[in-house]
């Protein structure tokens, strides 16, 4: 493979179609195979990604502060935030379940937002960070991001099953919507970003390993 000389598609006057991954000449406006817009780099993607990420970061606050479920047990009403729900799980000796829920609803969203912010900052301000490490982090973020949906699935199943009036009743609470939007927006922020920008902007000297 290309070992010492690293040629990019841009230098060769070629660019990859983002949709069907066919190589097209840069001067063509639409991909010859699928008709998608042909762009060497999507510079606007950085702004879009920032906007989505900042919105997600703001929504992460209500998602964690407000209760995510309301439980009525024999007339007694309890509100659970994401964190207190996990604490309950730990106290009722369901540690493995607690770890799964903790990963899906606290670790993954926080990691994603911090990770994407680091990534975007590194591109926007050309920070001296190893690009290889950033890219590895980005792949992890892309892959684990969807696992946050777990919490929403669990809520929907619980709500459908547990509805017995004053005796036992589970309902979603305001944080559920905020949490759903955090997942949606962070997924979009990662999706929208043109990662080729990272490799253009940072100098090769930051990448000695």
């Amino acid at each position, binding site marked *: *493979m*290309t070992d010492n000389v*690293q*040629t*990019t*598609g*841009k230098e*060769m006057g*070629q*660019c*990859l179609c*983002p*949709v*069907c*991954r*066919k*190589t097209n000449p840069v001067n063509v406006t639409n991909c010859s*195979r*699928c*008709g*998608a817009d042909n762009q060497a780099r999507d510079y606007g993607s950085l702004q879009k990604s920032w906007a989505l990420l900042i919105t997600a970061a703001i929504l992460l606050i209500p998602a964690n502060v407000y209760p995510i479920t309301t439980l009525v*047990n024999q007339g007694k009403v309890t509100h659970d935030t994401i964190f207190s729900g996990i604490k309950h799980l730990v106290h009722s000796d*369901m540690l493995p*379940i607690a770890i*799964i829920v903790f990963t899906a609803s606290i670790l993954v969203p926080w990691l994603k937002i911090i990770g994407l912010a680091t990534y975007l900052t590194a591109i926007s301000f050309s920070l001296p960070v190893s690009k290889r490490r950033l*890219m*590895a982090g980005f*792949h992890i973020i892309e892959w684990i991001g*969807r*696992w946050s*949906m*777990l919490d*929403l*699935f*669990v*809520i*929907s*199943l*619980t*709500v*459908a*099953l*547990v*509805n*017995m009036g004053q*005796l*036992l009743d589970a309902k*979603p609470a305001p944080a*559920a*919507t905020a949490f*759903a*939007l955090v*997942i*949606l927006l962070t*997924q979009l922020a990662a999706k929208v970003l043109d*990662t*080729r920008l*990272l*490799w*253009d902007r940072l100098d090769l000297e930051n990448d000695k390993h």
Partner: protein
Amino acid sequence: MDLQYASMHHDDIDNSVILCHACDLAVRRRALPSGVRALCPRCHTALYDTPFCSINGMLALCLSAVALFLPANLFPVLELHFLGSVRTATVFQGAMAVMDLGYWVVGIAVLVAAVIGPGLLLLSIMSQILLVKMGLNPGWQRDLYKWLLRRHGLFSQITMLEIYVISFLVSAFQLSDFSDIYFGVGTFSFTMLFLVTLFLQREYNIEHMWSRLND
């Protein structure tokens, strides 16, 4: 796939050199043993692997997935027995329950990820296979095929069957604290649907599907 790296010329950029979609590095395509993935030497993004993508194999998997789709969505995935009363929930009822309480963002997210996404994905792959079998004639067949391939990334991204399978296990454990929980035909069908779709997605190769338009 073209694996002519021995007899390659520099000007024949289209087939022998591919560009990494993550960092735009030009990489020379080489023959790979099966089960091995080529990674970008600069940023370690997966570039390509040896496709098997047998159309008949995919058709078989696709048909089994379609056959499982209805029972997976019509039968309850969880059953709760509490003080003599029995409550059941299908995937759809779960989504509708949160929607009825005003949490429609959550409801739509659940519905899209567990019902609509997988449905569209299966329908799309099935149509693609049938179009290939019909010969991909110029005209509406090629146009529809292209339209479906362009949307494949979206459809597979909104399909989250694996997460749903884990979620009914988590719910079952959580609820087992105050009641008896049973799995039903729906649970079995849904898990099987997940497994079959998983294998279908492994077999499916988008580049291979695109390359059918070239000849």
